């Protein structure tokens, strides 16, 4: 079996699956259950100043799919609402009882160096393996000058990271907010400040849905709603891109990344790792299904690695990064064309109407004497957009076949159709 253990900027963990800072890591009881379920590590729910934050009721809402499966999840919960003393005591006990697991402590404070120094000393005394700086929380805390309010200003990110590196010997992971135009900027700032790693993404500003009778956004508190932090499967594509952006940025190349955002199974995890993540963090999936999911995640990842011949996580970590490039470097001579397997086609007509109404009119509807429909690709018209393959409800019925154009690789910078080609 593949070795799932990792060394993430000096933090060792028996597997790459960590519980992200959030409700599941709020207290010893939950964390013990998580470790009993064999999670590799946890990032303890964010500590702050005393007195602790106070939370409202209700706190969560969801964006549902067709079968009421949760596609996206939103929360308006703040950082820990328990006393600092209680949290530090439990962290100390847990680390002592579970020495082989990674225990990282998430922190959030106002931008005053003394506050950070004082808390860092207390955290270091717990025996925790590292700290994660919560510069990403998008709800509630930014109104108080913390969380995303810091993460959105690269100068603040760099400054606070430097304080942490100055006043602590622990590895410093800077957690980034996606509520920003270019995620590479705070990542570069974190690196400049001496960060050992970044973790991303934190949650995205969101309103999941409305109660149309009460005309109020969910989750409802009294007669109002507010924007929350969005996470779950729906944010995975956004997170993957942001991880890739940092992984392939020459300024931050090699900076360890802990991937977060909609990870719910081994495949999601493998994708984050392939794009450059050295560990992955999970929250929503555990909140929806319980801690037991880590067993399937570990089992699936390990079997997939065995099948591919990867003995360690590091053997495939970042392997897809080099294949992620700018649009201008894509091969202009590459061509795929849709192929419909008539034997598995169920004649639903979805590919046809999608292509006919919104794409390139490249699928013909043929009707025989018995009225039976047959959908056939008009190869000359097909641009290879993948829309028909996406709309098809039958797996592998429509495939995109690579055409042999006989032409060599040529990107847009080399393309004679580009007015700027060759211009420096």
């Amino acid at each position, binding site marked *: 079996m593949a070795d799932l253990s990792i060394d993430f900027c000096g933090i060792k963990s028996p597997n790459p699956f960590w519980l992200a800072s959030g409700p599941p890591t709020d207290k010893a009881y939950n964390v013990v259950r998580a470790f009993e379920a064999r999670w590799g590590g946890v990032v303890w729910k964010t500590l702050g100043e005393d007195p602790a934050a106070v939370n409202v009721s209700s706190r969560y809402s969801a964006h549902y799919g*067709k*079968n009421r499966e949760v596609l996206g999840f939103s929360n308006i919960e703040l950082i820990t609402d328990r006393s600092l003393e209680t949290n530090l005591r439990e962290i100390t006990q847990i680390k002592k009882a579970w020495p082989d697991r990674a225990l990282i402590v998430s922190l959030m404070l106002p931008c005053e160096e003394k506050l950070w120094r004082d808390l860092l000393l207390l955290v270091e005394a717990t025996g925790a393996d590292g700290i994660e700086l919560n510069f990403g929380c998008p709800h509630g805390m930014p109104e108080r000058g913390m969380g995303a309010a810091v993460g959105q200003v690269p100068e603040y990110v760099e400054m606070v990271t430097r304080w942490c590196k100055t006043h602590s010997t622990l590895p410093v992971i800077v957690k980034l907010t996606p509520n920003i135009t270019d995620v590479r900027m705070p990542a570069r700032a974190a690196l400049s400040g001496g960060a050992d790693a970044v973790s991303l993404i934190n949650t995205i500003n969101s309103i999941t849905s409305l109660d149309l009778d009460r005309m109020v956004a969910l989750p409802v508190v009294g007669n109002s709603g507010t924007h929350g932090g969005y996470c779950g499967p729906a944010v995975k594509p956004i997170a993957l891109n942001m991880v890739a952006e940092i992984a392939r940025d020459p300024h931050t190349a090699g900076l360890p990344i802990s991937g977060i955002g909609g990870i719910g199974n081994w495949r999601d995890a493998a994708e984050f790792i392939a794009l450059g993540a050295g560990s992955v963090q999970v929250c929503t999936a555990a909140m929806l299904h319980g801690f037991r999911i880590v067993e399937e995640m570990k089992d699936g990842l390990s079997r997939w690695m065995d099948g591919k011949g990867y003995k360690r996580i590091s053997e495939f970590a970042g392997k897809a990064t080099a294949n992620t490039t700018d649009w201008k470097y894509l091969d202009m001579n590459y061509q795929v064309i849709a192929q419909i397997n008539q034997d*598995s086609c*169920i*004649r639903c*007509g979805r590919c046809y109407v999608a292509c006919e109404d919104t794409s390139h009119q490249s699928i013909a509807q043929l009707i025989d004497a018995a009225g039976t429909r047959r959908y056939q690709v008009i190869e000359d018209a097909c641009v290879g957009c993948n829309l028909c393959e996406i709309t098809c*409800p039958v797996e592998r019925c429509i495939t995109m076949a690579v055409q042999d154009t006989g032409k060599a690789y040529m990107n847009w910078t080399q393309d004679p159709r580009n007015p700027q080609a060759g211009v420096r």
Partner: protein
Amino acid sequence: MMIESLNYLPQPAASNASLAERFTDLAPAMTARQAAIESARCLYCYDAPCTRSCPAEIDIARFIRNIHDDNINGAAHSILKQNILGGSCARVCPTEILCEDACVRNHVEESQPVMIGLLQRHAIDNMAFAAHPFQRAAATGKTIAVVGAGPAGLSCAHRLAMLGNEVVVFESRERPGGLNEYGIAKYKLTDDFAQKEVAFLLEIGGINIQYGQTLGGDLRLTELHERFDSVFLGLGLGASRELGLTGEDAPGLLAAVDYIAALRQADDLTKLPLPARVIVIGAGNTAIDMAVQIARLGAEEVTLVYRRGVEAMAATSHEQKIAKANQVRLRAWAQPQQVLLDDAGRVRGMRFEKTLMTAGRLAGTGEVFEIAADAIFKAIGQSLDVASLSDPLAQSLQRDGNKIHVDAQFRTSLPGIYAGGDCVAPGQDLTVQAVQHGKLAALSIHGDLTAKTEAS
């Protein structure tokens, strides 16, 4: 009714309440949760095969999407717009040979079509309109006579009323609904659904139903033709086919439809005559309805006899399963040869001759057997009641075989007279098809009258 000829038979021993429990919904309604899950399975096909196979042309993908999007009234409206009897059709349609057979999820790999019939019922059962969902167009000043308050006539009347016409419906029985009221198995249309549906249909206004009016009896086509701007004949098939055997009129032998009608109308099921041993002759859905209902009423032995093989039965496989589940014995490859009577001249059984196919024709083998029975029900098909077309004008209607000839616009050979439903030539004798005929005939009648008005 002829069922009185069975009054010498005993009556069910069970109480009315316990008998009634045996006639509750055979296919109960979906819960809202089931409907949510099932509607999510619909792939929202384009040019959907289910809709193409629906005789009433209901936009199935659309109504299912509306159910899923929590727009039940929208779903119901799109069903009723095509089929005003969508509620009863959801219950009685042989969906297994129509929409659900065509469903793309019914392919070999999955073999699990979306439950379209139950979803349609869910939409209709749960609709909540503040007023009738269809409004009448400006009055045309035309009045049309509709003969028959069955599915074809009612559908025609509703559409004509919607188009701004006045309609007088002439019905020979005491209640409207036709086969929905008198002919469908009790457990398929429970809770007086047929009457509730007609009441809903009549909410549109402009439709006056007169009962006890029989064409060929007190009602004459000549008069209707003179008095009304147009006439629609939705006569149904009032006559039961004969076996052509001696003893056909003996007590103990009668048409299945007559017993079913009595059972459907009975307020007290314990008052029905109940034979202990029953033979049902036929292979269609009426034969199954008869056999299953008499079994549920308490008959001890019910044998369904068919002269051909099971694969040739008109009853769908779904119907055959219902029969099996109710311990109905099926005897194929046997044809009636002789009605066996006791000393009192009452049915005591039937002698059958075994059959086989030889050179593409059905033939008797000469080998016979007898089945003892206290009653025999024939369900070998219905035909147009010739008595209803007895007046001179009616007699001049062109026929196709023993049905009324109509063109593609449901015009008969006589100007101003239209026909649809089971009494016309093209068709499969399905409720949903009768509804479609009535709807299309109404459009045709309205169009012809409008054209005539504009021309004059």
